[in-house]
């Protein structure tokens, strides 16, 4: 019998090792698995590489991990969110490494990891500084840059509802990076607002099939 539900946030992030690469969902504040990130803060893993679109904001989520000196490197498209302080501070001090990736390439690189592909050529960024040091090839008369798959040891994802097999549906634009990150990590951990019974989710409308999910924890929220 398969039951991916775990009882606590601590259990959800158990075993996260120092030096791990952690994929963190969310775009702006939507879809950020704040409670799971805070559970990583409590869990203690250090020297992390964080893959996420923004670099957190204020004193919460990824910003808190940075503030506590737990992040060695961040791979993202847009670290300067409104209200972001800690990334800038560590960046200026030279104590955090930044790998900047165009947003579509960031998502596509994670998909490539999840899909078992060895990499792809994209025109995005091929004319830019971000292609420096990478293979560039003319394809169909246009410059393309070769981009490598980007997988994680752990993915932290926020969804709306989940069942014991790990099937997930999301809420509106909070879906964003979640479904792709879920495919791209060795261990995919999801916080859902609500557990539902197996069979309650419409098989035509499951967004993330449970095969991509390892642990699900319920974090209730006010509506």
């Amino acid at each position, binding site marked *: 019998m398969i039951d991916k539900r775990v009882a606590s946030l601590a259990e959800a992030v158990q075993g996260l090792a120092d030096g791990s690469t952690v994929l963190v969902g969310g775009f702006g504040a939507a879809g950020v698995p704040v409670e799971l990130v805070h559970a990583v803060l409590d869990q203690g893993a250090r020297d992390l590489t964080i893959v996420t679109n923004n670099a957190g904001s204020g004193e919460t989520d990824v910003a808190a991990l940075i503030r506590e000196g737990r992040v060695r490197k961040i791979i993202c498209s847009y670290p300067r969110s409104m209200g972001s302080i800690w990334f800038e501070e560590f960046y200026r001090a030279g104590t955090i490494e930044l790998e900047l990736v165009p947003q579509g390439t960031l998502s596509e690189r994670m998909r490539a990891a999840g899909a078992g592909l060895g990499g792809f050529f994209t*025109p995005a960024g091929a004319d830019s500084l971000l292609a420096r040091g990478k293979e560039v090839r003319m394809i169909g008369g246009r410059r393309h840059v070769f981009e490598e798959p980007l997988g994680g040891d752990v993915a932290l994802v926020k969804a709306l509802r989940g069942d014991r097999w790990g099937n997930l549906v999301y809420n509106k634009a909070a879906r964003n990076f979640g479904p792709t990150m879920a495919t791209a990590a060795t261990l995919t951990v999801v916080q859902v607002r609500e557990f539902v019974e197996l069979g309650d989710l419409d098989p035509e409308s499951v967004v993330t099939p449970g095969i991509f999910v390892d642990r699900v924890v319920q974090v209730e929220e006010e509506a």
Partner: protein
Amino acid sequence: MTVPQLSHTEMAARVARDIPDGSYVNLGIGMPTLVGDVISAGKEIIFHSENGILGMGPAPAPGEVDWELINAGKSPVTLVPGGSYFHHTDSFMMMRGGHIDVTVLGAFQVSEQGDLANWATDDAHLPPAVGGAMDLAVGAKRVLVLMMHTTPDGRPKLLPECTYPLTAAQVVHRIYTELAVIDVGPAGFVVRDMVAGLSREDLQRRTGAPLTFADEVAVLVPAGG
């Protein structure tokens, strides 16, 4: 010297006029967002947001904000009937794959070859950030730039070559500023519209690369003028 000029809303409205009925449109952060507010009532335009929305509607009424329904600039929006949600990778398929008819982007600089610089300046103080601009610039069928004609201190933003790092080369089709509407063609910048009361010499003086002028240059009349 004060020159006649369009307001931001007038600039956005001029862009909106060029967007055909039925278009799929992605608006960049900042001034381009205004274009969504000035589409004429007769047109059905479907707005795309990079974070996984097609059929994005206007800002919600106060008290009806859902922070899980935001646009690329992280402001609350709504969904119109017929809209849909999808994940980021699918969203960027739409952008990079040539499915967006029109994108309207801000810019630091545009070259007469249509090169676009809109993600980084030479300010080493700020950490770099790129977002979705590079995917949109290479992928949209038509790339429109909406920006002020010069920098706040009067330096030209339309140039023979961009001096800031490129977002993408040879992608911009048309530029809309407070002073003019300018096509980017094989022969460089071609002025199509100019604001009333501005001379061709005035416009050239504010532009870093040579301008040519369409056979008939339309006149843009600011509400204030």
